[in-house]
């Protein structure tokens, strides 16, 4: 600690250079924190997904329909607690650029499958009684100013109703709170029975069966049993856990883990040269000062340590700022909305600090070694 002033003063010998190097390190670690945070965020979100929920879709494509007749057969598989379904409606409000994530479903069963969604029982009852009824997520309702009792026109680019129109009239019968689920839960549900009766084609098809199992340990067996049941039928199925489904959907965006690591790796590799160059220049400029320290009795090892600590201080200080800023960004409403109630995982901060220490040692060692090897007489003579 008593050497702190000496090290700190050395670090700020050329203020402008140090500030610019620090800004580079701060930005690099901000990027690291954001990308790794998002990466970890997806990972955490996936692990938090329910393991006792299975998703059944057509093996060929998620967008291909499966017969509604599968419902009763899936429900009859031993170990199945409840089954609901989704038929994609593809809605929009007023114009196509205001999409609504709308699905046709059996609401009574849906909220048995998604136990964490908060909804008043009377809304579920109202939905069962109102053929044109819809249940809407609270955020979506707030966004458009919809409330229970409203009649709303929802367009769809896929389904024409019996009257030949692409605009469907629905009655808002209730709202629900999906915050406990996190991001990704569809927030607009219409009655499947009404939808199926009113659409002019594709009758009797659904896109997903969502299966709640009694014992998560049986999930694998049930998955296989469902898929085996429909093997060699007109529409074969693929059954996945919720997290496996989310992972396969994420993979459509690309391998986020690889992309995050590749970008961070490239940035940190570049940073290594930048920091090493700064430290090397700094030591070169201080040759005579380091020789004076050695003259006063500072050993080679002590001078080496002082330079390494200086590099450590530079990298750690800037990395802390960068990671701290990244953590603040994760608290922003936009990201909270994306990941649900999510903070940057502690592991990302620790990883960042570990990388900062490594960076300091790798970039600080060559100049520190040079300082260690400095010959006092030659350095004082300017040779």
């Amino acid at each position: 600690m008593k050497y702190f002033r000496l090290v700190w003063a050395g670090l700020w010998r050329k203020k402008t250079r140090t500030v610019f190097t620090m800004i580079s390190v701060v930005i690099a670690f901000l990027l690291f924190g954001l990308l790794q945070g998002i990466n970890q965020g997806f990972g955490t979100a996936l692990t938090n997904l329910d393991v006792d929920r299975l998703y059944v879709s057509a093996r060929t494509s998620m967008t291909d329909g499966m017969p509604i007749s599968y419902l009763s057969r899936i429900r009859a598989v031993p170990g199945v607690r409840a089954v609901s379904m989704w038929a994609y409606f593809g809605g929009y409000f007023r114009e196509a650029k205001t999409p609504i994530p709308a699905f046709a479903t059996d609401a009574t069963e849906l909220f048995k499958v998604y136990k964490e969604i908060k909804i008043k029982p009377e809304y579920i009852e109202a939905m069962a009684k109102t053929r044109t009824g819809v249940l809407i997520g609270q955020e979506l309702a707030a966004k458009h100013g919809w409330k229970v009792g409203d009649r709303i026109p929802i367009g769809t680019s896929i389904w024409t109703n019996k009257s030949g129109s692409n605009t469907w009239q629905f009655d808002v019968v209730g709202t629900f709170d999906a915050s406990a689920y996190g991001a990704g839960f569809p927030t607009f549900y219409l009655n499947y029975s009404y939808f199926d009766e009113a659409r002019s084609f594709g009758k009797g098809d659904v896109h997903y069966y969502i299966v709640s199992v009694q014992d998560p340990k049986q999930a694998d067996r049930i998955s296989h049993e469902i898929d085996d049941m429909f093997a060699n039928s007109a529409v074969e199925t693929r059954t996945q856990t919720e997290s496996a489904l989310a992972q396969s959907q994420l993979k459509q965006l690309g391998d986020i883990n690889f992309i995050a690591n590749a970008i961070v790796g490239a940035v940190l590799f570049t940073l290594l040269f930048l920091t090493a160059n700064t430290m090397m220049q700094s030591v070169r400029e201080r040759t005579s000062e380091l020789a004076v320290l050695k003259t006063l009795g500072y050993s080679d090892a002590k001078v080496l340590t002082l330079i390494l600590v200086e590099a450590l201080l530079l990298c750690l200080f800037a990395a802390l700022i960068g990671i701290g800023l990244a953590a603040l960004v994760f608290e922003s409403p936009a990201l909270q909305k994306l990941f649900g109630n999510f903070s940057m995982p502690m592991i990302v901060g620790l990883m960042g600090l570990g990388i900062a220490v490594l960076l300091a040692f790798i970039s600080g060692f060559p100049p520190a070694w040079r300082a260690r090897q400095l010959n006092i007489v030659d350095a004082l003579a300017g040779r």
Partner: protein
Amino acid sequence: MTALVTLRNVTKSYVRGKQKVEVLHGVDLAIEAGEFLALMGPSGSGKTTLLNLVAGLDQPTSGEVAVAGDRIDQLSRGSLADWRARHIGFIFQFYNLLPVLTAEANVEVPLLLTNLSKAQRRERVQTALQLVGLADRAKHKPNELSGGQQQRVAIARAIVSDPTLLVCDEPTGDLDRQNAEEIMNLLQALNRSQNKTIIMVTHDPKAAEYASRELHLDKGKLTNDARRAA
């Protein structure tokens, strides 16, 4: 009287490019405790090389160098660094203060190597700065001080750890006459009142007049040794 510094048949040669240059040829020298020695001679005569050997900054090619009872020619680089911290106070021609530190922080630098507490270090720094008459400039950085003041800070740094020997390489070489005289008066006072042993390399005959002994070096050999009455 026992000599504080003893050199026996010391030679020093350097290899410059492909050439081997012998700078000192069999130097024998004894310096007693409390002496103020001025080492004079033309450029390239080996004055600074001799000073570096006595200060433990360099090792002789052959011969013995003993200071304060230690055979420093036999010490390793690491041991020599510890030895310098305990025994040598160094004053340079161009002051060589650390520009980013204040005067008091510069003076404190050698004390960081000791086990003294922060309070003890502060007390010693204040005493040293008072001795050189710069207690009021403790918070100033080197670029806020004149050349003479910077050299005083350098002297305070040299004496703060109470070394056995003060080694000065052209301490007035970068100063005007008035500042040079002030610095020489200060060194002489340290020698006389604190009984500090001082070895000073100088080209300046006026500066050499302050010393109690004058030694001349020419082409790597001692040529003249004169003691001056106090």
